[in-house]
């Protein structure tokens, strides 16, 4: 979702404008990535409120640090690196297990400005809703690293190398995390009585 000011800019040109302090370009760069960063923080922390705070924190850190960015990776990878660090710091502090159990339902809770997954689903998709709910629960049972690789790979579509860069892990570790995370999710779904393998509409 690139908008006018960043449309058509190469990575190098975008970086140049960001480093020059172009506020319009920064604003549109935020628009481009805020959903991805927010989604990552939301899935990793399990809390909407924390995810909002963390998303703001990530972009402020990026704003402060952009002039030191030296193209050692893609800009977006660097942004996810910041997001990952911010989330890990946060989870360390608040003890993730507690957060996830207490705030597990916050994700579904309507009432604030906008909440995830509140749109009514068509009748014929009710069965998929059941699958999605089960999978969302299963995601919460993954270890932090397994959850992080799952989100980065499946939802943010990062390559193994990019995930390794974001999480500062060896490539082989990323591969094995992805493999284990998928196995865990498959087993978890089976355990919940909604085994995978049927076509999704």
């Amino acid at each position: 979702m690139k908008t006018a000011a960043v449309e058509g800019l190469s990575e190098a040109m975008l970086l140049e404008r960001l480093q020059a302090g172009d506020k319009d370009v920064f604003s549109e760069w935020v628009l481009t990535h805020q959903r991805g960063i927010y989604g990552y923080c939301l899935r990793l922390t399990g809390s909407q409120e924390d995810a909002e705070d963390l998303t703001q924190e990530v972009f402020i850190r990026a704003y402060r640090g952009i002039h030191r960015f030296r193209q050692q990776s893609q800009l977006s990878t660097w942004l996810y690196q910041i997001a990952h660090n911010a989330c890990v710091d946060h989870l360390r502090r608040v003890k993730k297990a507690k957060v996830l159990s207490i705030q597990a339902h916050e994700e579904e809770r309507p009432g604030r400005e906008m909440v995830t997954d509140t749109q009514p689903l068509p009748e014929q998709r009710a069965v998929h809703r059941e699958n999605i709910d089960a999978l969302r629960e299963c995601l919460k049972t993954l270890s932090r690293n397994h959850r992080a690789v799952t989100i980065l790979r499946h939802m943010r579509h990062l390559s193994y190398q990019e995930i390794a860069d974001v999480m500062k892990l060896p490539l082989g570790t990323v591969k094995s995390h992805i493999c284990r995370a998928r196995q865990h999710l498959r087993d978890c779904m089976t355990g919940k009585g909604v085994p995978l393998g049927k076509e999704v509409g």
Partner: protein
Amino acid sequence: MDCSEAEERLHLWLDDELDEKERRELRAHLAECGECARKLAEYKQLGALLDQIDARTVVPAGLHRRIMEAVDRESAPAKGGARRWTRWAASAAAVLLLGVCVGVLWRGGVWPGPMGKSAAPYEMEQDQAAAPMEAPAAEAEASDAMGKADDRGVNAEEPAPPEENFAITGENTMEATWTVDPQGGDHRYQSGVSAIESFCAENGLTVLETGDTWIMVQWENGDGKQALLDFLEENGELVFEDRGPDIQTLRINIQ
């Protein structure tokens, strides 16, 4: 190819991390092995469900505005800039004064005569004027500061031996005390140590060691050092004894 190897490759295939030869081998295995083919279907459905979960993520209304307001606060006319210079000047003056005092004491408690009260900068200026024309100014400063003191019975300009001031951390480490700014909202959910750890990870600085209330950081160049100092200044009160560019390790004691 056995099933365990095939399963490993299934993941790589789904993630587009296999080359053509490996894909061909896997396809051959899947054609013969119903169990692995079933797993592939399951993992594909898992991916589809995860896509659906992600597709339903809605950014809270007002988040963009909130972020940009915070950015505007960051870039608001930098009172902080002036404050930072003031702080730096105060720190530099404190270091200079400390150096002068320790130098005096270190040289056996001999108090300087009238010239000594003018302290190092004045001494250097005098000595530079008297230095041989062919000597570069920097060398002149150094040699004068070290060499001419005895001629005048003045020793206040002798730099303090580092060991005396920094016995705790050793001669290759500088030391700083950092009081985290409780109003510095951007790090309100971190400890000081983890805030610095994150900063180092994002900016290519190396964390050598950490404790509950301290962290030891190393940088490779002046940019890294300056970035770290800027970060510390922006997020709290920093008292820092700079011992020059040759020393690349800083122990930060957090209060």
